């Protein structure tokens, strides 16, 4: 029990003194996850909206597949990205393995289905309401996509947030393609896994506290914005 108490005290010390090592790991984690979410938003928003608006053969199958991809195991994604980026893989010449870029790619693959699937649902619901009016005003389905995404903006924040939660919390994919290299590819989750196995509970606990606090803070801020905005606009 004293071990845990001791670890907790040390963890708080690391946090309060903004320990260099801890700050470095936190900032790399944020860079990787935020970049992955940005990539996923660029792909997932239009993809989800297109799936909601356009009817074509096989659409239902794609929607089911996309929903299934939301539960992709991170280690499997990590493994596949690893195979593609490894020296003998098809993209080996790029030399991306064990770099933050590789980690961004892996997390973007995990997050894009979440953003796309949730966007599809939100936009499909809004299209039911807007369809006649927008077509009456002369908008084609493709032309309506920006308007629908804009009008669904407050609900879509939730989709983006779910994606960020997934990216920042996963450990399997970044561990495999990043390699948990000190000062290069060490994120909060991979560091926690390592420090626990080494027995350095203080740093692990400190990083755990940061991870949970960040997640809480972002969710609380977004929730507040969403509730206020929806009250004002919907």
């Amino acid at each position: 029990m004293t071990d845990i108490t001791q670890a907790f005290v040390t963890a708080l010390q690391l946090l309060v003194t903004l320990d260099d090592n801890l700050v470095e790991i936190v900032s790399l984690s944020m860079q990787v996850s935020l970049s992955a979410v940005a990539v996923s938003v660029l792909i997932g928003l239009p993809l989800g909206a297109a799936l909601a608006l356009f009817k074509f053969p096989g659409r239902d199958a794609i929607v089911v597949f996309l929903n299934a991809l939301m539960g992709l195991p991170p280690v499997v994604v990590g493994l596949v990205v690893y195979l593609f980026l490894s020296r003998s893989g098809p993209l080996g010449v790029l030399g991306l393995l064990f770099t933050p870029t590789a980690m961004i790619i892996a997390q973007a693959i995990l997050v894009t289905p979440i953003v796309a699937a949730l966007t599809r649902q939100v936009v499909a619901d809004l299209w039911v309401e807007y369809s006649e009016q927008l077509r009456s005003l002369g908008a084609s389905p493709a032309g309506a996509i920006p308007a629908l995404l804009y009008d669904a903006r407050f609900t879509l924040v939730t989709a983006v947030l779910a994606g960020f939660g997934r990216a920042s919390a996963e450990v399997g994919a970044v561990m495999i393609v990043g390699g948990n290299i000190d000062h290069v590819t060490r994120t909060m989750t991979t560091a926690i896994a390592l420090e626990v196995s080494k027995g350095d509970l203080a740093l692990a606990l400190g990083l755990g506290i940061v991870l949970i606090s960040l997640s809480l803070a972002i969710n609380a801020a977004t929730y507040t914005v969403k509730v206020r905005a929806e009250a004002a606009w919907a």
Partner: protein
Amino acid sequence: MSIAMPAPVADLAPRTKRADILPLSVENVCFDAGGQRLIRDISFTLEAGPRTFILGPNGAGKSLLQRLCHGLLTPSAGRVRWQGPGGHAPGREQAMVFQRPVLLRRTVAQNIDYALKLHGVARADRAPIIDDVLSRTGLARFAKSPARHLSGGEQQKLALARAWATKPQVLFLDEPTASLDPAAMHAIESIIDTMHNEGTQIVMTTHDLNQARRIADVVLFLYKGRLLEKTPADAFFNSPESGEAAAFLKGELRW
């Protein structure tokens, strides 16, 4: 009714002379849904000028007929023929106002701005048009308010203002005052009247026969998906041709 409307200003006159899309010919139009024929072999011609009301009991196909003409629905058989190249596209020269206005989750002004943008009006030209239609519909003070915070009557005024801003040649109105109080209804009717006087062709449905008596010039009477008569309004209300219309006007029609 005496709702004061500001005098027309030059801004709402057509920007350029556009090809007339009227007369509209509806030729043997049928519409099926769910294995049922809901519109049966309807033919008529809609000429420019007279305010045309589509009347009939619930389920007669009034809203469907409007949507078929407007281009939101495609006939299962027959055709809807507008004049000119842009006639068929719903948004270009026609507009529609629905029973329940669908407003974007934006400000009042932005709702109109979006419609103008879809019509290809340059950004710089939009502001004066928006100001004009908002002041003419009495909504100027709400310009920056969220559209969905307006009252029901104001929301419908905004839907009309949005249609008005695009200067349609033809305006379809599907029971635009069905859920409004008398004051709001009169305000809406007054706007419709002004648009009519400025040359927009009005095609409207209503369940309010007094409203139809006040406004209509021509009545299309639908019953069970068929067009039973197309008659000048005076004649329709005083001596309808069909037995069904007579029963409908007396409130005795079974449906």
